[in-house]
């Protein structure tokens, strides 16, 4: 058995018993990355030398009998949106192509403290905006199951690298489904924790009230291991929850007795692909066979979730991305060219006696802002900044933003009511299996609807997990989404593990 195919849990045991070294594991994965990344495009940056040096260091410390962290010697891939002072953090944007953060995101710091080997930085939609990773300014990521298809997004690289055996553990971020949707489309496990469970410090913000980092792995047990490492209170994030973190990997074996599973009526409506529907319904039958009682529930406001999301997320994005203005760091337009351009425009207006044009001519600061942002951001990021700017403008705020906040509360109340009746909610992750690359790039609205089943968890702040539950006729993975009440990660993981134990979907690998 190749080391690259082993789960983190299996590798951890081999490492701890000295049957394999971290250098061997890391080298095997680096070899796999070297052979597969050109065609898959999962990683943006890999520092093979530095990574091997860190692995060798862990091996040395292990041999010396040092006390090591829980992920000692285990390679972890990190989405290029979590700051790491040892290398670039680009958010897959021209804007931050040359940015080197002088600090670690808390998630990254915790991985380092846990003695994990940070093997590389994964591709994503620019600033985590998108559902196909096609919005990366640098490269396309392909779905390991079918290279003409998307791995999903925005954590497309994070999901693809796990599916393609380039890393056993991967950290992504999820603002509206960006972990769960690519996990579903790539046939891996992806989990968005409760809002506040994992620190957002150093996570380059897209929409601060929705962003949450979480694990992408091949098994639920690995997800538990990774989550318990990165979760926990952080005094540097005022929204992080000051609550103890349970040992998820210890409790995950315990099945949920008398599980009450909810099925959402509104999920099985127009737009849901029949193959996805049938895989999800079969998954529900698996739970029934495991002793769960199945209850149909209603989330009446879920039909407004996508609209609500696309008011709130762009509003916060327009504010969060205002800092990329070319002044202090990041991309700045060529100023010599800019000055020449302004001179020539001024001369043209003067020659034409165009006083109005002269009066409206940008000063060089304003032109620097305009150009830097126009050059540094891609079209989807611009679209969302414009949407958010519009929504927050005087006269529109109440009608859009404030209304969206009210609906967001109603969506949360729907869930609160539902979780009085059921322990977990099961449903599809995406309406369809992986779509073709390029299929939706010109139809942003269709792309937004891909988030239909996932955005509610972000709006309500709930934990939610995606795990493999079948394959389409074309051989594409289909995901099952489970949702739990806030802070019920333990229950969510145990419920997911039950299913994983009873099925073999997670053992299938792409060629």
């Amino acid at each position, binding site marked *: 058995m190749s080391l690259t195919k082993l789960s983190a849990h299996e590798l951890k045991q081999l490492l701890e018993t000295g049957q394999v070294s971290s250098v061997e594991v890391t080298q095997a994965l680096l070899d796999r990355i070297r052979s597969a990344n050109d065609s898959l495009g999962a990683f943006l940056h890999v520092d093979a030398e530095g990574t091997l040096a860190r692995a060798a260091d862990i091996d040395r410390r292990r041999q010396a009998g040092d006390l090591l962290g829980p992920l000692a010697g285990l390679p972890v891939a990190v989405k290029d949106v979590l700051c790491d002072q040892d290398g670039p953090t680009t958010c897959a944007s021209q804007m931050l192509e040359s940015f080197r953060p002088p*600090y670690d995101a808390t998630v990254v710091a915790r991985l380092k403290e846990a003695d994990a080997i940070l093997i590389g930085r994964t591709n994503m939609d620019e600033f985590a905006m998108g559902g196909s990773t096609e919005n990366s300014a640098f490269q396309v990521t392909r779905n390991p199951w079918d290279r003409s298809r998307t791995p999903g997004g925005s954590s497309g690289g994070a999901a693809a690298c796990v599916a393609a055996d380039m890393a056993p553990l991967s950290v992504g971020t999820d603002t509206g489904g960006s972990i769960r949707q690519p996990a579903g489309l790539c046939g891996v496990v992806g989990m968005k924790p409760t809002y506040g469970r994992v620190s957002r410090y*150093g*996570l380059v913000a897209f929409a601060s009230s929705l962003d949450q980092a979480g694990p992408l792995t091949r098994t639920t047990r690995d997800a538990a291991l990774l989550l318990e490492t990165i979760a926990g209170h952080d005094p540097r994030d*005022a929204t992080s929850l000051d609550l103890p973190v349970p040992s998820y990997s210890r409790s995950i074996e315990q099945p949920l007795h008398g599980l009450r599973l909810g099925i959402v009526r509104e999920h099985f409506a127009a737009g849901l692909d029949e193959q996805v529907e049938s895989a999800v319904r079969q998954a529900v039958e698996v739970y029934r066979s495991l002793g769960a009682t199945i209850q149909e529930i209603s989330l009446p406001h879920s039909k407004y979730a996508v609209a609500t999301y696309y008011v709130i997320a762009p509003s916060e994005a327009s504010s969060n991305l205002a800092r990329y203005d070319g002044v*202090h760091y990041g991309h700045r337009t060529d100023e010599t060219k800019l000055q020449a351009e302004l001179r020539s425009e001024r001369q043209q207006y003067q020659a034409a006696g165009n006083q109005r044009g002269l009066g409206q001519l940008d000063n060089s600061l304003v032109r620097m802002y305009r150009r830097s942002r126009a050059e540094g951001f891609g079209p989807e990021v611009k679209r969302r900044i414009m949407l958010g700017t519009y929504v927050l403008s005087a006269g529109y705020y109440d009608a859009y933003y404030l209304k969206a906040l009210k609906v967001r509360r109603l969506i949360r109340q729907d869930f609160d009511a539902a979780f009085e009746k059921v322990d977990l909610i099961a449903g599809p992750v995406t309406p369809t299996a992986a779509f073709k690359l390029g299929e939706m790039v010109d139809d942003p609205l269709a792309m937004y609807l891909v988030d239909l089943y996932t955005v509610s968890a972000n709006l309500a702040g709930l934990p939610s997990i995606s795990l493999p539950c079948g394959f389409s006729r074309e051989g594409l993975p289909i995901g099952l989404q489970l949702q739990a009440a806030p802070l019920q990660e333990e229950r969510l993981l145990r419920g997911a593990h039950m299913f994983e134990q009873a099925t073999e979907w997670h053992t299938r690998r792409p060629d």
Partner: protein
Amino acid sequence: MSDPYTTVIGLEVHVQLATRSKLFCGCSTQFGAEPNTQTCPVCIGMPGTLPVLNRRAYELALKTAIALNCNIPETTKWDCKQYYYPDLPKGYQISQYDLPMSADGFLDISDPQGQFEPQRIGIIRAHLEEDAGKSIHDEVAGRADSEIDLNRTGTPLLEIVSQPDLRSPAASRVFLQELKLLLSYLEVSDCNMQEGSLRVDANINLHLEADGQRLATPIVEIKNMNSFRAVQRALEYEASRQYRAWQETGQQLGQAPKQTRGWDEAAGITRPQRSKEESSDYRYLPDPDLVPVATSREQVEQIRQSLGELPATLRTRLIEEDHLKPYDAGVLVNQGRALVDYYRAVVTKCKQAKIAANWVTQDILRELKERDLTIAQLPFSADRLAELIGALQQGLLPSTRAHEVFALMLGDNLTLTEAIGRLDIEQVDDSALIALCQELIDSNPKVVADVQGGKQQAIGALIGQARKKNPNVDPGRVRTICLELAGKC
């Protein structure tokens, strides 16, 4: 009121709170450091960094708001005020928009010179926000470089907005003085205008009557005033400028957009400023990185109890309990809490409020001014002053020589007894005094004749001679005895 209009003024005061660290990160707030040395990834807004509230800043703001008689809502939240400027690294300022931490307060003002009636000035709100950085525009020698110093970025500011209740530039200045005094009693800010710890913007327009119609001139916001005197001058200038402008154009409120003008101290005029605010829409957004702050009734009460006596209360108390003149009470209180404490320590010892007030407001204040010291630095404790006043009361030294004694005690750091000894001051007993007076009466028949002729003031010449012969004589006693002896002649 000779002006044909009423001046309507509202002030907006930004106060830097005296915290050691910034509002949302741990950087120092010390003034005057090398540019960009007091910054961190949080206050310079680097990607992924998050603000965390400095509780101390919130407490100081709360203390001020309570002292300004504001209502404190149970929860307050933070908003992003969005605009682009190079000294605003996040592209937004964290401020408070629709749920400020306090609202609806007031500050009472009165004028010791009696130029206006005592007045209650409403406070619309006081809210907490972070300061921006500093842009330094260097246009020397044809260069047009702008440099940014982000040391100030993120310093806690309390923005205090008054109602447009002020009716004159002089009252505006008194309001600012009273506010500054309050802030110094609360010890929430150093209020140093030169270092920008206290910044004032003023909104002003005129209400007037024409053809039986009441109307108002367009509102102007004045910026760039670097002292309270400048505020008063700028407002005086602006009021007359607006009146002239109205006479020329007839333009009323609503017929022109709100204008921002800058005060030019040297020229003594306001000039229109190109304002980024005129057309701007700040697109306020509740800051999702910060959680709302809850303040309990108990907490508010606890702070209210801990405020100590504030200037207005203290003045009333000195007038009512110590029977000081309002003017003297004002002078004492306006010097700050330390001087009032000093005065009260003196009174506690010597029980002579009026005399103590005279000494403190005259001699002590003069010494402080001449030596450029604070009361804590002056090497003259309240006990020593009380001792000096006590000796005077007991007649241990003549009042005429008290200032000499004071000067020696302070200048040569002598005890009261040492100073008295050094000056050869001794009590003159009555028999010696009578003998001296008799001698003077005998040798000054002209004075005696004048006195007997009804010119009692002529006795003054004898008092002068008596002091020459013996500097320790009490002039009052000399006068009484001489008059008596002259009457007997």
